[in-house]
């Protein structure tokens, strides 16, 4: 992994929000890397800090109340946190693009879609308006919208088509990294299937790296090479999709898998994780998952679990399960789902 | 009421609870203090006023504030302080009752129009639009003229003339609340329309009602002054803040205190009501609890 140059390398990132109720620790000492052309799934529940991390990369943390308390975000070897607002504006939408969850509100309702794409192109490229509009039509066709519809307004499109337009805007300037924040959550399953298919296709055509933020483990299985599971502002498990899905190691990951009803199996009762996400203004000491964890031992409530590599490229922040893993049948690889 | 085993359960929002939370809000408490003080003045005006409000003394006219006459005297030599104290009776009544009438009627029509919608809404709101299209002072004059002069007729006239504004505001809030799922949820357990409006919809549009009505008190006092001025309201020599204000206008260059003091009285009243209203609004909103 070290021999390839990293596209994104987040080191020890901490992001906090100061609120009346206290300091919200949205992201806590997060470490994450992404290689060129890689697709990373970023999984966690509401409030786990997925979107905050993405906004941190984009330099869009609202300040106040948010502050990046600590850490570095290296993008192509340069620390984004040291860039000026002007430099960030060039990077945003240029080299790094983001797709938001709700296509209904991320488009300007009084501007035709081709103009919205062209605007993006004009911002980041030295081209004429005519060229930008041509590029817009090209992009629309790439995402499967006929060029006759280029002069339509957003309200004339359905939800799935709007999300296609949003994707077209994001890809208009050939970004190196695309961050998609729950891009299909607001869509129906059959439309979601269309959009995912489109994203697959686009991946083959253009070599953009992707960070897919989602709570849907199914989408990650389909779209991503690597997965990071986030809990209460930290990455608790990070591995290749294959390793994580076949050999989940962290108790939280295991709980997540157990919470989803399996479409191919009958189960009377779901094995649930007891309790609730911790209060982000008052995180438990030690491992923040320990109050809900069935495997917790005394030291979990006092010691912060380090990330350990349990097999090549498979990192877990749980020493207890690491012990289990080592003791389980040698080499065969610990805990089977 | 309380269960034996569990924490005390509140049934309906308790008055005691509201008082306890209101006490923590210093501005609201200040407002309440002023309002209570004004009401005290109004009740005991005959005892605490240093002079009779109708006592004329033409030799002493246009006296600047002094030891004998703290707020000075007017063109007939009447003591302004005494007139303000007596005036609080009329002005507070006019302000509060007229606004009360507007809130009750406006609330009723607005809530019915917004909740039922359709033809009823159209009928009520077009009626309100007709009233709105007439300047409210003109409307008040027309109503007062047809009812005849007098304190109570004037309050009714002022109250009715501003009803459409309240109806509009309340209808707007009701309209947006009507579509909320909790209204449907109340229907699903068998709640009647009256209960839904009283318990679920109106409490949730309290904020705009309170803001509008505290401001409304000021304009009601001034409208009432206008009516009195053209002889449809309070007849002289009964003192009333609005009338004192307009009466003193002629002398504003030379004897500014004649308008300053009644003006201050109105301003302090509105400010106090505003503080109290804002405090109440916050206390009644559970989201702002603690």
């Amino acid at each position: 992994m070290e021999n390839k140059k990293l596209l994104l390398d987040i080191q020890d990132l901490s992001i906090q929000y100061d609120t009346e109720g206290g300091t919200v620790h949205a992201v806590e000492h997060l470490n994450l890397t992404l290689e060129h052309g890689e697709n990373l799934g970023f999984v966690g529940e509401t409030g786990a800090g997925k979107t905050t991390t993405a906004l941190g990369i984009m330099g869009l943390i609202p300040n106040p109340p948010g502050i990046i308390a600590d850490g570095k975000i290296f993008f192509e070897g340069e620390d984004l946190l040291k860039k000026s607002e002007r430099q960030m504006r060039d990077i945003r939408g240029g080299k790094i693009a983001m797709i938001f969850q709700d296509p209904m509100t991320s488009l300007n309702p009084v501007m035709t879609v081709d103009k919205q794409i062209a605007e993006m192109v004009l911002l980041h490229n030295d081209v004429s308006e005519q060229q930008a509009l041509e590029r817009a039509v090209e992009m629309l066709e790439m995402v499967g919208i006929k060029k006759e519809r280029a002069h339509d307004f957003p309200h004339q499109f359905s939800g799935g088509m709007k999300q296609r337009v949003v994707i077209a805007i994001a890809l208009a300037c050939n970004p190196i990294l695309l961050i998609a924040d729950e891009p299909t959550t607001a869509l129906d399953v059959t439309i979601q299937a269309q959009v995912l298919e489109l994203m697959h296709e686009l991946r083959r055509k253009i070599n953009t790296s992707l960070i897919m933020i989602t709570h849907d483990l199914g989408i990650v299985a389909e779209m991503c090479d690597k997965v990071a599971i986030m809990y209460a502002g930290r990455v608790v498990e990070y591995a290749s999709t294959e390793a994580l899905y076949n050999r989940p190691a962290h108790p939280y990951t295991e709980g997540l898998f157990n919470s989803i009803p399996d479409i191919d199996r009958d189960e009377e009762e779901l094995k649930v994780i007891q309790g609730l996400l911790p209060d982000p203004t008052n995180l438990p000491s030690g491992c923040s998952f320990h109050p809900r964890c069935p495997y917790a031992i005394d030291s979990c409530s006092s010691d912060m679990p380090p990330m350990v590599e349990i097999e090549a490229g498979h990192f877990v922040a749980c020493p207890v399960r690491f012990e289990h893993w080592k003791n389980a049948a040698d080499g065969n690889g610990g805990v089977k789902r | 009421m309380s269960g034996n085993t569990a924490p005390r359960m509140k049934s309906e929002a308790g008055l005691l609870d509201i008082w306890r939370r209101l006490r923590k809000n210093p501005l609201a408490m200040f407002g309440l203090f002023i309002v209570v003080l004004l009401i005290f003045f109004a009740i005991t005006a005959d005892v605490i006023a240093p002079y009779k409000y109708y006592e004329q003394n033409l030799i002493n006219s246009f006296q600047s504030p002094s030891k004998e006459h703290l707020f000075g005297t007017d063109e007939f030599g009447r003591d302004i302080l005494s007139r303000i104290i007596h005036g609080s009776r009329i002005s507070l009544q006019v302000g509060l009752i007229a606004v009360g009438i507007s809130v009750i009627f406006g609330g009723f029509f607005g809530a019915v129009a917004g909740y039922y919608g359709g033809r009823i809404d159209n009928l009520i709101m077009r009626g309100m639009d007709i009233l709105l299209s007439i300047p409210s002072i003109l409307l008040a004059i027309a109503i007062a003229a047809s009812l005849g002069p007098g304190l109570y007729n004037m309050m009714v006239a002022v109250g009715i003339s501003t009803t459409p504004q309240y109806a509009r505001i309340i209808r707007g809030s009701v309209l947006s609340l009507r579509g909320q799922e909790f209204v449907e949820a109340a229907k699903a357990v068998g709640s009647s329309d009256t209960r839904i409006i009283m318990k679920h919809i109106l409490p949730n549009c309290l904020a705009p009602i309170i803001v509008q009505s505290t401001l409304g008190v000021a304009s009601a006092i001034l409208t009432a002054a206008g009516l009195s001025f053209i002889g449809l309201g309070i007849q002289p020599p009964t003192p009333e803040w609005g009338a004192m204000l307009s009466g003193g206008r002629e002398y504003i260059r030379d004897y500014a205190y004649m308008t300053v003091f009644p003006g201050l009285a109105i301003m302090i009243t509105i400010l106090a009501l505003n503080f109290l209203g804002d405090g109440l609004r916050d206390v009644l909103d559970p989201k702002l609890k603690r």
Partner: protein
Amino acid sequence: MNPNAKTIVEVNNLKKYFHTKKGMLHAVDDVSFAINKGETLGLVGESGCGKSTLGRVMIRLLEATSGEVKFWGNDILKYSSSKMKEMRKRVQIVFQDPYSSLNPRLAVSELIAEPLLVNKVFRSASERSKKILELMDTVGLAKRLVNSYPHELDGGRRQRIGIARSLALSPEFIVLDEPVSALDVCIQAQVLNLLNSLQKQFGYTYVFISHNLSVVKHVSDRIAVMYLGKIVEMSDYQSLFKEPLHPYTQALLSAIPIARVGQKRDRLILEGDVPSPIEPPEGCRFQGRCFYRQDICKEKTPELRELEPGRSVACHFARQLVRTNGR
């Protein structure tokens, strides 16, 4: 279908149309089915297919345009408003959004007390508060939360309040309108388990409305698939997932992302979007997106027919599809 099962709810030719500026919106269009006592009927479909409207019309939160909803054999759509008020105790609903379905100005105890107060179930306040605490216990809400307000609680707990409200009057039949869609997976699993154990304990009959097929499969005994106001397929959950007959069901099932690596199914990607339910054309509602479409589909609306006992499909080519799909 189990021959011993007693039909609790029977829906016949139910229609619900809405007047809109663009024309008549056919939200529920001639739907008929029956539900047995103690079972869970899953109602799936994409947004705008009319599943929530159907759920609301069934318990008369919305008035039907025509048709019958028989509860133990009596058509409740014909009930007077006073009789319907009595009826409300026996049919209940849990709403999708635990944020907007609770009045923000009421405390937990007041929210749960409302059905009891409105229907004057208890004469004394102390009996009522006993019942409130009992209900809170049933749905797994801690006693200390009685005086909390909805905004202080998380989505899962709020949804438990919604469930407690619907249980307060001891209903027989509960419409669950997307009860877990707004919740995170872990909380979703907790609520699903709760609903399941309540059904076992009290023998409730559920209609479970959802767009999430894996959730529907987990909770349902039988499943009805809706498309543009019509039921296109209805069957027990096992056969529906093993051998979907209607082309739409097939596409829907193939579209679910599976949380397992290397299990990507052959997707049937549907063209286009769900058409508008306003003044729908003659013929099969699905014809515009169907990959088996023939001429007849444009001319004749396929009826929901029983192909095998307990399995009904509304497709002209259902029999052929059985053969081609049989594994």
